[in-house]
C-alpha cells in the first residue's frame, strides 16, 4: 500500500485504513479464535449475533449473542487494537445461552462471535459494523 507524504502525515490514519477494509482478519484475531476452538472447523449456523449496521458511536455499541445449548461464546472485534472482547461462560442455571452487552469499536470492522456448542462443535457468526468519525458534536 503506497502512502504519499500527505497521506502519511494524515494523523496516522494507517490503522484506520486497515480497520476500514472489510473482512480484514489479522494474526491476533486468528490467535484468539485458535485458543478457543483449538483450530476446529466452525459451522455458520447455531449462533446469532445482533449488532447495529451503523454504530451511533464507537464508544458504546450494543450487541447481543445467542447460541442455544452453548457452554461458552466468545466475542471478537477483528479491527480493534486487541481483538478479544469477552467470553461468556454459561452455568447450569443460565436461563438461555444468550447475553447482551455494550462494546467499544475502534473503527468500521467485522465483529465475530463463536460458540462452543453442547456437542463440542463450534459455530461462528459475523457482522460488519460501520463506525463513523463523528461530526461537529465531536
Amino acid at each position, binding site marked *: 500500500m503506497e502512502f504519499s507524504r500527505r497521506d502519511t502525515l494524515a494523523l496516522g490514519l494507517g490503522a484506520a485504513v486497515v480497520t476500514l477494509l472489510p473482512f480484514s482478519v489479522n494474526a491476533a484475531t486468528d490467535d484468539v479464535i485458535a485458543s478457543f476452538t483449538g483450530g476446529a472447523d466452525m459451522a455458520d449456523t447455531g449462533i446469532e449475533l445482533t449488532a447495529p449496521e451503523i454504530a451511533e458511536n464507537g464508544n458504546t455499541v450494543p450487541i447481543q449473542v445467542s447460541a442455544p445449548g452453548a457452554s461458552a461464546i466468545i466475542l471478537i472485534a477483528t479491527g480493534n487494537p486487541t481483538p478479544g472482547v469477552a467470553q461468556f461462560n454459561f452455568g447450569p442455571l443460565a436461563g438461555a445461552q444468550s447475553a447482551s452487552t455494550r*462494546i467499544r469499536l475502534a473503527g468500521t470492522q467485522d465483529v465475530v462471535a463463536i460458540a462452543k456448542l453442547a456437542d463440542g462443535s463450534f459455530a461462528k457468526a459475523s457482522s460488519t459494523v460501520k463506525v463513523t468519525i463523528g461530526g461537529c458534536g465531536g
Partner: protein
Amino acid sequence: MASGVKPRVKVPKTASAGEVVIIKSLISHKMESGQRKDKEGNIIPRSIINRFTVEFNGQSVLDMTMEPAISTNPYVQFEATVPEAGDFVFTWYDDDGSVYDTTKSVVIV
C-alpha cells in the same frame, strides 16, 4: 479501590419455581483500556473490570471475562433459571484487585 464504582442490578423480586427471568446488570467503572495517552504522551495503564460472575444459591449462572473493549460502565443482560427461592450473587473483579458484589433475593410465588 477505584472510586465511584457502584453496581446496579435489576432482578425480579418474585418468580415461579423453574421460571426463566431476565436480569440486567450495570456497574459504574471507567474501564480504562490501556490505549489512551496522557498529556505527556505516556500510556494511561489499563484498569478494568476483568470478570463478572453470577451465581444463584451457589450455582453458576454466568461467568464472563471482560477485556478493554467492553464499554465504560459495563452493562450485561442475560437470563437465569430460578429453581427455588434464594439469592443471586453478582461479583465484579477489578484489575486492581478490588472485588465488588451485590446480592438480590428472589421469593417463589
